[in-house]
């Protein structure tokens, strides 16, 4: 039963990663690519971490997984913000005289 739930969660997570990768490859500019990628990362990784937490043997492992997820969330959000900001700077610098 637990394996079934975990498997379904991992499959869902993998789907979001797949969708994000397709978005990264197909979308036309940096901002829309970021949009696709960060949503996929956040949701996909979240689902996979939940699946691993369900399967984990001990609370120490579960808490570690949760902390890893939070750290990646923070890093992704910050990186996304920085890339978007740099792109915005470039756009405004190039678009205006």
């Amino acid at each position, binding site marked *: 039963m637990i394996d079934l739930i975990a498997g379904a969660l991992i499959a869902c997570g993998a789907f979001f990663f797949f969708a994000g990768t397709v978005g990264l490859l197909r979308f036309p500019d940096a901002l829309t690519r970021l949009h696709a990628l960060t949503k996929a990362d956040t949701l996909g990784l979240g689902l996979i971490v939940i699946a691993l937490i369900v399967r984990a043997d001990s609370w120490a492992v579960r808490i570690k997984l949760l902390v890893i997820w939070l750290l990646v969330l*923070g*890093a992704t*959000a*910050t990186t996304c*913000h*920085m890339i978007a*900001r740099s792109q915005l*700077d470039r756009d405004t610098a190039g678009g205006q005289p």
Partner: protein
Amino acid sequence: MAAFDVLLACLLFGLAARLLVTTDLFETITLFVSFGLGLALVWVRIGAIDVALAEVALGTGVTGALLINTRRRLETKAPEWLEVAALRPAASLLPALVGLAAGGAALAALAFRLRAGAAPGFADYRPAELPVQNPVTAVLLDFRAYDTLLEIGVLLLAVLGAWAARGAEAGGTLRAASPGPLLSAAVRLLVPLMVVVSGVLLWLGAVAPGGAFQAGTVLGATLVLASITGALRVPPLPAWAARGALALGFAVFLGVGAGAMAIDGEILDYPQEYAGALVLAIEATLTVSIGLILAALAGGVVPSGGTRPAPPEEAR
């Protein structure tokens, strides 16, 4: 899992092939970093977590940052920056001393191996004598300690070479143009956490994957992050202290090794009862030195001429 392994192997071969044929510099760097990450997965699959950590941190993270930095300099500046800066007598004293020490260590290691006839095999290295429980750390710091000692010497010489080539004061090449409030806040949160993680990795090195190289890399990344965002102002160290800290790990390692030679007649053959403590002491100082060396290589974080890199310009 066999299917996964085959897929991973195919991916690595594909990346390697692409890496060799591509001509675009940025694409090459991206592929190199991707290849490193894939390779780390391979190390995990064959159970070599220590090697995987080192591959990700040093082979991919630090090297990737250095390559990107170099590419930017190649694009924005004419190649004149490669001109070797004029060495001042005071600045060349330390490199000379370090060079002598490194040469001496190399000769001592060579003499040791020659006298022993052949290096002892790992089969003769009995687990009951391990100074620490983690076999990888035991091999790095005890069984093949002279290899590690000379590696640290090479790292130190690399920094001195970089300083000589670009001028020690030309540091701070990696710098965020405008860190922005979010990045500054994230760095403030992350820096204490990263220092703790570095300490944990160092301590864990005795029993589990981890150790001085991994801990030092995390520390180096922390220094670079804090320095390029300007979120944390590290009090400027006097030049002699900064340079001393760079060389500290090597000096302590060499000192302990030489001390062991004075007692026991063989370099780096620690006395049994203190071996664990000595290994920990060496690893702790190595962590600090490796962190500073990597930070100095990546962005000239360590001031050397009594000045430190100016804080990044404020946001527009």
